[in-house]
């Protein structure tokens, strides 16, 4: 077993699934000879040829749009949008067509496509390269929205996403692409979609997060543990559909919940989780649910980016705050 980065895990999953399933193909800008600007598709062109590793013209709406046509014909396109800030033109096709094709044809036509895109801030990128877009997609019925937080999860979840018979938005936290390495067994085993993962057990508070923020969350949990505060850490992984039972079970145990996300606060996906806890788990709460999220401002350019990102101190403080109640 090799230690690899998250982006290498994406590559491993793509290569393995293309090998196993001839209907899988990848498409996007610079995915061929260049191997993708983050190298997620490195080496695929040489192995699978240009019919299955498609350098598209520069047109995001149509990258999504043609994927729908391919998928309806039984192919399994894995489309890459180069940076999440450029995904918006693709929204039309994803929201109006990919998500509805199965339903509106009573299952006659289906859309087993994956739309991959890097997401999130923290890499000192130019404007429009640091957006957190999960909530836009998570609002749409018919879609699945997945964000891996580690190399192993990226590998297993991407395999699951490709094999899923419905459209999956697969958001890859850019900051986590090369943040750390992990042993990943290239065994072709998918991880389950639609479930949250328990990253760390604890009894005093539940911290719910996804994507790159899990990194800060784990550090915060370790620091709290040093003080004797045992935080349970949940990696949501699939935002839509959301596995609330796992979160509610944890909150029932700890009585406290802190939701951490890198997207702006208002209308962020943390609001959905907090509302669901209020609906179904209010009576087990010992303290108000806390959100640690980016402020409601435009993602700053690199000079101020540091102030925008939720950090370990904020997470620790939020957990402490929940402990101030009873």
């Amino acid at each position, binding site marked *: 077993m090799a230690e690899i980065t998250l982006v290498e895990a994406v590559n491993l999953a793509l290569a393995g699934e293309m090998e196993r399933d001839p209907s899988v193909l990848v498409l996007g800008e610079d995915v061929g000879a260049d191997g993708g600007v983050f190298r997620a598709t490195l080496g695929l062109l040489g192995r699978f040829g240009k019919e299955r590793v498609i350098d598209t013209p520069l047109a995001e709406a149509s990258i999504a749009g043609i994927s729908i046509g*391919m998928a309806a014909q039984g192919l399994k*396109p894995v489309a890459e949008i180069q940076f999440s800030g450029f995904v918006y033109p693709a929204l039309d096709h994803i929201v109006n067509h990919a998500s509805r094709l199965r339903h509106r044809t009573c299952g006659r036509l289906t859309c087993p496509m994956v739309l991959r895109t890097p997401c999130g801030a923290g890499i000192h990128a130019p404007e429009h390269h640091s957006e957190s877009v999960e909530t836009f997609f998570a609002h749409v019925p018919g879609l699945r929205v997945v964000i891996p937080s580690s190399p192993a999860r990226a590998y297993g979840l991407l395999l699951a996403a490709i094999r899923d018979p419905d459209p999956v938005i697969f958001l890859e936290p850019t900051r986590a692409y090369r943040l750390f390495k992990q042993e990943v067994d290239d065994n072709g085993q998918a991880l389950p979609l639609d479930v949250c993962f328990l990253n760390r057990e604890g009894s005093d508070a539940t911290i719910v997060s996804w994507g790159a923020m899990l990194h800060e969350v784990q550090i915060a949990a370790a620091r709290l543990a040093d003080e004797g505060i045992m935080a349970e850490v949940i990696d949501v992984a699939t935002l839509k559909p959301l596995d609330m039972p796992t979160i509610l079970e944890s909150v029932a145990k700890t009585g406290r919940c802190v939701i951490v996300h890198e997207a702006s606060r208002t209308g962020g996906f943390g609001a959905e989780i907090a509302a669901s806890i209020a609906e179904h788990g209010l009576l087990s709460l010992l303290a108000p649910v806390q959100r640690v999220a980016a402020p409601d401002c435009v993602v700053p350019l690199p000079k101020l980016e540091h102030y925008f990102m939720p950090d370990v101190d904020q997470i620790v403080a939020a957990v402490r705050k929940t402990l101030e109640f009873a």
Partner: protein
Amino acid sequence: MSVVARFEIRHTQFLNHLGEPTQPLPDFARDPDNLIPYYRAMVLTRTYDAKAVALQRTGQLGTVGSSLGQEAIGTVVGSVMQREDVFLPTYREAGAQIARGVTMTELLRYWSGDERGSDYRGPRQDFPVCITIAAQCAHAVGVAYALKLRKEPRVAVTMMGDGATSKGDFYESLNMAGTWHLPVVFVIANNQWAISVPRSVQSAAETLAQKAVAAGIPGEQVDGNDVVALRYVFDQALQRARSGDGPTLIEALSYRLTDHTTADDARRYRDPEDVSRHWAMEPVARLRNYLVLQKVWGKDDEEKLIAECNERVQAAVNEYLATPPPPPGAMFEHLYATLPAALAWQRDAAASGKIHG
């Protein structure tokens, strides 16, 4: 200075507005009997459209758009395509869809607001009606990519309006189809109007066909009210696509003789005189005149056909009206291949009619 590119756009017409040949007819039309099926299909389409509008006016159908005046385009497209080809329609192509084997009952179900209407029993791989303008162009490119990848001699055909040619999706799709040399035919039903916006406001381009030039694919214009010309040009485009010679853009010139949809009142924005002028050019009378001139069509044939079309449409209407409404739980059917556990309670609530409970 040197000229690095030039282009010209061909316009094809065989029958003028009176139904008189303007040049020798192509082989398939030498025997006028061969044109009768198109005539019959156009009259059926016109009967269906009129009935759909009448149903809407009497509260028995939702908003619907008629193809009155432009029946020739869809009829030819739908009839000339091979069964195994894939059609990606917009909302004004009842004629093409019927010719493809979509039943009028299915169409009426869809336009009454019942998703089951898009579960076509006939052309299983055809796309449902695309309401978001021009999006179907991109889907057609994806379909064509799949057909080509599998080396199947099949073609994706998509139709769109003149307004659709202003959308990015349209340009992006022509461009991609061109770079990959895909088996796809784009047919513009240029009816001169996009709701209230006339063709002249849509683009400064002399023709819409020339938009193909920038994508490096053939583009041509055809008299969209002339069945013979349509079939001639569309045949060639299909053949080109099927034999691996890539995509074509066809601009079919016609005119929308009625409101945009039943929710529209065209008198608000266009001169009725203009509409009257275009009645003189419409495709059904034009082909009838030709068939009559050729002595292969007469009063009896006409009466019989009209009775037959009325009967067929009425049978579809009866079947449609007898369709039980979908149960509320159907909102969650086919939402995903397997409904995620997280949504089960919502499905159950919907199924019991207590969606907001």
